Structure formats: structure tokens, C-alpha cells
């Protein structure tokens, strides 16, 4: 095994990314000079951005197996590749789905931390009217990056859960395409670097939605932001494709679709959206890139374009995008509630179908973001109805959760606390949804802080709380150790109330008429008092997240050793595997012999390992 800093894939990747960027700049410049056109920074930076992503992938080693295949040389099968042990295996290409899941998870936490930090900077600016800390361009760049980095972080989080859990829960050795899996993860790293590097190129002032015509005229940072998101889109598409193939093709014998653990349904539904709709945000951003580079008239009315077209393309993805991480979040809630209420999941089939229902209806609601945009008048009412329809499958989930809790023997463990927190936070997010989806109220509330409050509710209830619950719950399967119970409880009891203060404060200033994304506001005292509350609560949310991060790192190193089925779950990864879960998961194939959630029955099992003797015909 090689040693030294260049043996770390991540380091090699970043060096190659820098080299790729310079190569892209050089190519454009040489071509332009050869044709007698002078140096121009923007095309050079755009090609450099895409070359830098390819450079990273070459440097980290994500192409090696495919290059061998393309040249007709035998590549080592992914399951036989030697991998470094210890922490180092997380820093380079690994084909083990559990390692990739943890890699996604670490990038998730890093991205959420960064995205949250951006918010705390501009929140500090909003403590008082007038400008104190940062300039207007910085403020705008920070709100845009806060949005996109946090959303990317949550998308990564959904992928983290899916990659780590799906093969374990369906009794597979690994994903359907291990090489593609590693490729999809590593593509996300240069993408995040590109999005962040937009700060160095003058930032951008459009917010994360990047509406033209403004984005056509914004600073150069806009192009790096676009390039990063386009690259990340491919990461998302390929990762999701892999999960769909895994669920459809790799299930253990006897595991029919309706006998899968419910999380797998959530992951499947989510992946269907990510695999298809993501192409539209990639395309819409590329079209703006072309408009800037070649003067193409897509969105600028002065050149025959139509800015409303961008909004259609953008929201066709960006509304369902929310479900890409909320559905795995919901699925974590549905997976954990039966374990801690010691009862079957209420209405399993309905819950499974509601995930698909949300995913499919989610394709038909995008224009509810455009009620005030001046789009075609006749589209408004149909999109209002489809939007309200989403409440039906979501309501099914809430009924199932309350039905599961009803008369259960509830155990208030840390994961359960976060699950309950998720439910009550999402409830407000869900109830404010129809208010915004109804045209008359939306005309009043559109683009106000009320939207910000609603959105953060759905994000925290739908993703952040369930994600923290999942990390606490499956931590022993990753590290063989438990997370600290005390620190977990402290995290929860800081996070929940401070989040409520933050989100109710946002809704209140929104109802008073405060616009979102503005750096300055009226000197009226009712605005400032609430803004101080929001900012202080925001810092407490950040504190809770830092405690969570500390808990993860500390427990990974010296947490209490976890033995056996820590939560008395019926799920295969707890019933059949030691902590941490070994490489290639199950030593023998497993068969499904019962229901996943029959906690009231003591004499049945969900899964059994097939004895080796019985494995020969």
C-alpha cells in the first residue's frame, strides 16, 4: 500500500481539479488567439470549470475501471478491489456501498455546516436596519449560496441514507453498479468546489433560483455556480439511477415489493424524481450559460427570448427536488416509529403508495411558484388544484404515523425524539403549504418571509430532524459504537425550541410584509425585534448542529461499544449483522419469512439467513 499525501484520492483529485481548470483556460485562450480574438475571461472560466471536474475525477481515480473496460483490458471486479483500512478509505475511491454512504454523509454534514454558516453571516447583518457588516453584493451572494449549498447538502443526505441503507435493507451485497456508485459520489465533490468558487469570481446576486434576465447580466460567479450545479446534477442522476436498479434487481429472495422495509420505498420514489427531473435544472442552467456565452436568445426578451420559460424549466425540477430529500426523511420516520412504538407500521401499503403518489403528483405542481410571474393565466387554477392534491398522500403519512403511535409502548430514545420533532416541525410546514398553494393568499404572501418560514419548516421537519435521527439510529452499524445519549438529548432540546422561534419569527415578519432576500428593512420596531429573535435562534440552531457534529466525531472515536441488536429492531441489518456491518454485508443469502414490522408478535421473524447446507441443490 502506498503512503504519503498523494496516496489520498481526495488530495490527488483536488490537485488535478486545479490542473484541469488551467488546462480549460489554456485551451480556450489558445483557440481564441489562433482565430484572432483576444483573451476573454468568461469562456475560459466556463471551459476551465468543466475541465476541472473531469480533472478531479481522473485524479481521484474514478475513471480507472472504465478506462480499462473501454480499452478491452480486464478490470478488477469492484468487490475484489483492495481498499485501505481505517479512516483513510473514506478519503479515496471505494466501491463499498457503506463506505460511499458514509462519504455522502460526511459531505452532507460539511455542506449543511457551510450553508448554515452563510446564513448566520447574513442573519447577523439583519439584526438591525441599514448595512453594518457586509456589502450588498456579498449579502446577495451569501443568500444564493446559503440556499444552494444547503439544498445540495440535503440532496447528498438523501443519497447518503439511500446508499448506506438500501442494500442492507434488501439483503444485497452491494449496489447494482458499484463503480457508477463511486463515480456519482465523487462527481459531487468538484461540483461543490465549483459552486463555492463562485465567491472568488465576484459572486452573483440572483439567489439560488438564478432567474434570468438578472442571471444573464450577473457577475462571473454566476457561471461557476451554474457549472457546479450542472455537474452536481449528473452526480444526482447517476446515483439515483443506481438506486432504482438496485431496488428492482438486487432484492433477497422472497422480498416482494410490498415486503421491503418502508425506507426502501421512500428511496425508490425519491430516485425516480432525481433520475429524471434533475435533467431540467441542468438544462435550464446550461441554457443561461449559452445565452451568456454565445448571445443566444432564450430568456432575454430583447433578443426574442422569454424569461417565463426559464421558470417553467427550473421549477419542473426544483419543486420535486424538495421531495428528493423529504421522501427519504419521511421514510426514516416511518422506519423508526414502529421500532420505538413497538407496533406494526399502520397501513404499510398506503404509506408505500403515498411515497410514489407524492413523487408522481410532484411532477405536476411546478407552476405554483409562478402565480405572480405573469405566466399564462389559464395555468393558475389547474396548478392550484394539483398543488393541494399533494396534501392527500402527505396526509396519509401523517395518519399512518399517528396510527402507529396510538397506544404504542413508546420508548423516548434520542432517535425517537428527533422523529417526533420532525413530525411536529413538518406539521406546521405542511399546514402552511396549502396557504401558499392557494392563488389569492399566495398573491399576498409570494416572495415574503412567510415563504422562507414555510420552506425551512418543511426542510427541517422533512430532512434535518429525520437525518439526525437516522445518524443516531444507524451509527453503531457504521462505527460499532453508540452516539452519546446525553449530547443527543442536549442537541434536541436546543434545536427544537430555537428552530420554532426562528421559523415563527420568519412567518411573522412575512405576514407584516417583509420581502425575502432583502438586505435592509424598515426601521419600525416590530421588524427589528423579531429579526433579533430570528438571528439569536438561528445561532442556537447552529450551536445545536455543532454539538451534533462534535457528538458524531467523539462517539466515532470513543463512544460506548454497541453490541448486537441495539434497538431490538426486526430489520435484517440489526437482526443478522454485527456492529459495525461487515464488508459485503450478509455472509449468506437471506430469505424473508415474515412481515417487517410485526412488533406485537414475538414468535415470527422478518428475515432469516439461509443455512449453508441448504444452499446446495
Amino acid at each position: 500500500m502506498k503512503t504519503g499525501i498523494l496516496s489520498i484520492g481526495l488530495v490527488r483529485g483536488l490537485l488535478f481539479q486545479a490542473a484541469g481548470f488551467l488546462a480549460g483556460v489554456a485551451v480556450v485562450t489558445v483557440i481564441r488567439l489562433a482565430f484572432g480574438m483576444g483573451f476573454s475571461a468568461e469562456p475560459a472560466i466556463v471551459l476551465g470549470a468543466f475541465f476541472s471536474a473531469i480533472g478531479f475525477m481522473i485524479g481521484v481515480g474514478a475513471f480507472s475501471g472504465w478506462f480499462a473496460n473501454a480499452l478491452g483490458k480486464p478490470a478488477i471486479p469492484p468487490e475484489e478491489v483492495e481498499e485501505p483500512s481505517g479512516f483513510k478509505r473514506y478519503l479515496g475511491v471505494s466501491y463499498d456501498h457503506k463506505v460511499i454512504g458514509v462519504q455522502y454523509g460526511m459531505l452532507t454534514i460539511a455542506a449543511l455546516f457551510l450553508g448554515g454558516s452563510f446564513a448566520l453571516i447574513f442573519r447577523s447583518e439583519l439584526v438591525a436596519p441599514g448595512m453594518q457588516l457586509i456589502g450588498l453584493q456579498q449579502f446577495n451572494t451569501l443568500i444564493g449560496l446559503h440556499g444552494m449549498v444547503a439544498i445540495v447538502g440535503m440532496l447528498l443526505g438523501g443519497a447518503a441514507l439511500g446508499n448506506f441503507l438500501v442494500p442492507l435493507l434488501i439483503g444485497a451485497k452491494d449496489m447494482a453498479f458499484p463503480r457508477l456508485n463511486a463515480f456519482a459520489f465523487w462527481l459531487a465533490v468538484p461540483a461543490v468546489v465549483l459552486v463555492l468558487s463562485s465567491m472568488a469570481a465576484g459572486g452573483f446576486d440572483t439567489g439560488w433560483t438564478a432567474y434570468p434576465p438578472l442571471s444573464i447580466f450577473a457577475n462571473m460567479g454566476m457561471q461557476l455556480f451554474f457549472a457546479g450545479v450542472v455537474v452536481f446534477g449528473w452526480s444526482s442522476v447517476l446515483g439515483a439511477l443506481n438506486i432504482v436498479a438496485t431496488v428492482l434487481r438486487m432484492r433477497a429472495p422472497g422480498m416482494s415489493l410490498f415486503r421491503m422495509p418502508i425506507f426502501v420505498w421512500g428511496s425508490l420514489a425519491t430516485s425516480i424524481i432525481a433520475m429524471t427531473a434533475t435533467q431540467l435544472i441542468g438544462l435550464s442552467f446550461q441554457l443561461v450559460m449559452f445565452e451568456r456565452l454565445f448571445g443566444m436568445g432564450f430568456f432575454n426578451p430583447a433578443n426574442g427570448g422569454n424569461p417565463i420559460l426559464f421558470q417553467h424549466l427550473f421549477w419542473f425540477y426544483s419543486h420535486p427536488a424538495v421531495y428528493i430529500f423529504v421522501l427519504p426523511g419521511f421514510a426514516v420516520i416511518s422506519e423508526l416509529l414502529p421500532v420505538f412504538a413497538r407496533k406494526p407500521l399502520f397501513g404499510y401499503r398506503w404509506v408505500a403508495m403515498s411515497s410514489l403518489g407524492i413523487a408522481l403528483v410532484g411532477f405536476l405542481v411546478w407552476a405554483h411558484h409562478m402565480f405572480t410571474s405573469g405566466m399564462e393565466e389559464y395555468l393558475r387554477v389547474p396548478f392550484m388544484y394539483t398543488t393541494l392534491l399533494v396534501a392527500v398522500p402527505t396526509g396519509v403519512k401523517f395518519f399512518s404515523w399517528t396510527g402507529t403511535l396510538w397506544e404504542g409502548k413508546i420508548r423516548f430514545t434520542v432517535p425517537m425524539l428527533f422523529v417526533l420533532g420532525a413530525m411536529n416541525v413538518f406539521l406546521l410546514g405542511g399546514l402552511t403549504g396549502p396557504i401558499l398553494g392557494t392563488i389569492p393568499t399566495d398573491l399576498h404572501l409570494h416572495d415574503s418571509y412567510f415563504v422562507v418560514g414555510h420552506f425551512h419548516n418543511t426542510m427541517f421537519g422533512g430532512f434535518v430532524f429525520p437525518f439526525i435521527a437516522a445518524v443516531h439510529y444507524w451509527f453503531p452499524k457504521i462505527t460499532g459504537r453508540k452516539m452519546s445519549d446525553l449530547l443527543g438529548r442536549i442537541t434536541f432540546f436546543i434545536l427544537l425550541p430555537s428552530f420554532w422561534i426562528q421559523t415563527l419569527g420568519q412567518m411573522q415578519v412575512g405576514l407584516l410584509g417583509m420581502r425575502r432576500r432583502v438586505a435592509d428593512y424598515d426601521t419600525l420596531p416590530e421588524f427589528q425585534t423579531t429579526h433579533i429573535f430570528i438571528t439569536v435562534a438561528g445561532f442556537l440552531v447552529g450551536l445545536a448542529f455543532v454539538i451534533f457534529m462534535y457528538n458524531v466525531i467523539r462517539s466515532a472515536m470513543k463512544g460506548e461499544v454497541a453490541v448486537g441488536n441495539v434497538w431490538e429492531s426486526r430489520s435484517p441489518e440489526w437482526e443478522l449483522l454485527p456492529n459495525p456491518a461487515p464488508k459485503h454485508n450478509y455472509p449468506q443469502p437471506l430469505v424473508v419469512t415474515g412481515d417487517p414490522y410485526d412488533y406485537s408478535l414475538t414468535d415470527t421473524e422478518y428475515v432469516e439467513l439461509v443455512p449453508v447446507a441448504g444452499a446446495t441443490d
Partner: protein
Amino acid sequence: MSVQPYPAETHPVDAHPVENLRHRERTNRLGLWLFILSDSFVFGALLFTRFYLLGNNRPELIQWLGLVVTVVLLASSFFMNRAEVQMSLGNRQGFLRNTLVTIVLGSLFLIGVVGVEWQVAHFGPADGAQGAIFYTMTGFHAFHVFTGVIFLSLVYRNAKKGLYSAEHHWPVEAAAVYWHFVDLVWIFFYPALYLIGTAL
């Protein structure tokens, strides 16, 4: 909830999925079709863009040139199909010949679109919505044809080295399906760009 009886196990439990080559190929096939599904959203969105911005108008283009490149591309799909059939019959020479014709026709299509049509069109990419749409749609499609040509060239080279058999030639199948898909996209793009509506 009552205990329900479960049907007796029908799957062979000894064949772990990953070790089964047949299973592997079927999984690969699913993966490829999922990719095509995903990619068709890009082309679908481009078509939406075209009708959203231009509606019942179309760019003014050289009709006979469009017809020629279309015929060339459709013919390539015919030879692609023959190549795959020859491979599954175990006729390597027949496969190589037909693949070579496919590669040549695909390259002619690229020369026709990018090398000729782009140069002689009455408008540039910056000339309003029609320029934006024409160059982007043909550009995205040409890029796919280009990647298909590279894919086919690699398959050609590896087939020459004798890496595929009549039973196992997954890369050949993948390249063929991808090629037909790119062709199918053109069957939608050609009328959208050349035939539907009145010329601007």
C-alpha cells in the same frame, strides 16, 4: 395484525444475484434503459423550449440538406441493427463491416449538421430565439451522435480483438441501443426544426 401464511419460496436460494452473469446482463440492461429515460427528459425539455418560444413558426433552413442528413442517420440505424444481428449469429466479420458503415454514416451526419448546415444557415446562434433553438437542439443531438461514434469505435476495436461472443456481447448491445435512441431523438427533432409550422 394477524399472521399471514407466506407462499413457499420460489426463487433458487443458491444463486446469489451478483454471481450470476445472466442476472448481471439483465441488470445492465435496466441501467441503460433508465439512463435513456433520464436523457430523454433533456430532449423533451428542448422540444418544449422550441414550441414555447417559436410556437407555430420554424427556423428557415435548407430543406434538402435536412432531408439528406436525416436519411443518412436513419440508414446508419439500419446498419447498426444488422451489425448486432451478425454479432449474435457469431459472424464477427459481418459485425465489423456493418459497424464500420454505421460509424461512417454517423460521421457523415455530423459533418452534414455541424460542418455544413451550421456554416450555411441564414442566421447565427445569437440571432433571436430561432438561432438559440436551432443551434442548441442540433448541438445537443450532435454531441450525442459524437459520443455514440466514440462508443462504437471502442466496441469495433474490442470486437476486432475478439472480446465478444455470440452469447456475451453486452457492450455491443449497449452501443446499439444507445445509437437507436439517438436516432429516435432525431425523428422528433427533424420535424420540429424543419417541417412543423411556417418558416420565419
